[in-house]
Structure formats: structure tokens, C-alpha cells
């Protein structure tokens, strides 16, 4: 097994294991932490695909920012009441059947698909390419993004403080 394959399977295990834990944990905080593990695995897969910028964005934005929002929402609302509840509609056979059919369909498609050979990556890194494109070719849109973020700041402050 090559080094790439080893890391691919390790990150895939992280992503799938974290996702499974995220939907099976009863405590919402545990589910959110498991989702973090899953997102970390996906970030590792981005790294294996030479997509360093996506890797960094995934860690800074999803794990650092969005998951933090999730945790805040979980802590803002009282979820202790829901902990004792159980799902009462017994629909899991239907769900399992749909999953099985989708899995078989995917396997058939996968076996028939003609995948293009993987391309060799350019020597210059992904982040450098993004930087050159963003800061030279798309200079004006880059500056407009800060306007968009400014609108987001104003909007969130106004919406959050309306009733205060």
C-alpha cells in the first residue's frame, strides 16, 4: 500500500466514522464534535487531492467558524428535554431499502463509468494559483467581497439587535 493510499483510507475512515457518530449520538454536543472529526477527514482528502486552499478553508471556516455556530446554537437552546425522546415511527426498513437501492445503482454506475486518467498537478501550489488569480486577474471582485462582508456585518448586527 502506498503512502497516499494509507492516508486516503485513514482520512476516509475519519470522515465516515465521524459522520456515522454524528447521526447516531443522542447528545447534540457529541454529535457536533463527531461532525468536526468528519470535516477534518474531508479536509485531509482535499489535501490528498492537492487542493491546499480548500483544505485551509475547510479547517478555518467549517471547523473553526461554522461548527462553532452549531455549538452556540446547541448551547443556546435547551436540548435536555429531547434527550429522553425516542423516534416513534418505525421507518428504518424503508430507509435501509432506499440506501441499498442507491448503493447498488451507484455500484453499477461506477463499474460502467469510464473515468479519465488522473492529471498531473502543476508544480506551483494550489494556494499560489488562487492568490495570483484572486489578487491580480480578479482584483475588483476581490475588493467587492469585502463590501459583501461589510453588508453581512451590518445585517447581522441590525437583525440581532432589533429586539434588544
Amino acid at each position, binding site marked *: 500500500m502506498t503512502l497516499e493510499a494509507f492516508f486516503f483510507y485513514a482520512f476516509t475512515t475519519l470522515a465516515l466514522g465521524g459522520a456515522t457518530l454524528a447521526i447516531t449520538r443522542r447528545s447534540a454536543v457529541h454529535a457536533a464534535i463527531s461532525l468536526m472529526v468528519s470535516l477534518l477527514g474531508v479536509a485531509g482528502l482535499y489535501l490528498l487531492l492537492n487542493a491546499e486552499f480548500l483544505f485551509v478553508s475547510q479547517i478555518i471556516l467549517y471547523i473553526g467558524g461554522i461548527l462553532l455556530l452549531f455549538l452556540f446554537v446547541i448551547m443556546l437552546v*435547551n436540548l435536555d428535554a429531547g434527550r429522553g425522546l425516542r423516534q416513534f415511527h418505525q421507518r428504518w426498513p424503508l430507509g435501509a431499502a432506499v440506501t441499498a437501492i442507491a448503493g447498488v445503482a451507484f455500484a453499477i454506475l461506477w463499474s460502467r463509468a469510464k473515468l479519465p486518467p488522473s492529471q498531473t498537478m502543476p508544480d506551483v501550489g494550489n494556494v499560489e494559483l488562487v492568490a495570483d488569480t484572486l489578487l491580480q486577474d480578479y482584483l475588483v471582485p476581490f*475588493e467587492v467581497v469585502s463590501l459583501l462582508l461589510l453588508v453581512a456585518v451590518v445585517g447581522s448586527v441590525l437583525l440581532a439587535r432589533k429586539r434588544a
Partner: protein
Amino acid sequence: MLEGYLPLFVFLVLCIAFPLAALLVGKALRPSVFAPAKLESYECGIEAVGGARGRYSVRFYLVAILFVIFDVETVFLFPWAVRYKQLGWFGVAEALVFLGILVVGYVWAYKKGALEWV
């Protein structure tokens, strides 16, 4: 391709190994004597009131949303930091304009009292 990430990998292994080792070595070394006081949050001091799973104040949420917005800003500045030398003063000017517009938002939020603890 993966060889360049060796420092990152060493860092990751250390980050996982260090807390694990600290916990396991601690468990092996310490005597385990049970006392009810050990189960309290603070063994000495004021007795804790209520559960730790209480609800947080909604005021934290605005701070969290503002954090996410400035987090997005960081992602946009990251490519500039990587290409800092090649872009030179041109890049610095660009980043200053980018940051300048956002500082307006920050100052506005500050003036509006969004960051104050009311």
C-alpha cells in the same frame, strides 16, 4: 507530494500522542482512592449550583456571527500571505483596501454597541 507535509504529520501525531500519554501515564501512576468531594467541580471553594448544561446567553450568538464574518475575511487574506513576496506593495495596497472596508464595518458595529455587554 506527501513528503512536504512531514512536519504537519509529525505535529498531528504529537497532538494525538501527548494528551493520550499524559492521561494514560497519569492513570498508571496515581493512586485511586474514592472520595465524594473528588466528584465536585471544585474540590475546595464555593459549591457549584445548577447543572453545567445550562443555556448560554443569546448575546454570545452575535459575537459568534461576527467572528464567522471576520473568519471569512481571514480566508481571503490567506492567499495574499502565501504570495506576499511576489505581490509586493501592490498586494499590500490591495489588502489595505480590503481591510479598510471591513474596518468600517467593525467601527460601525463598535459604535452601535454590538460588542458591548448590555
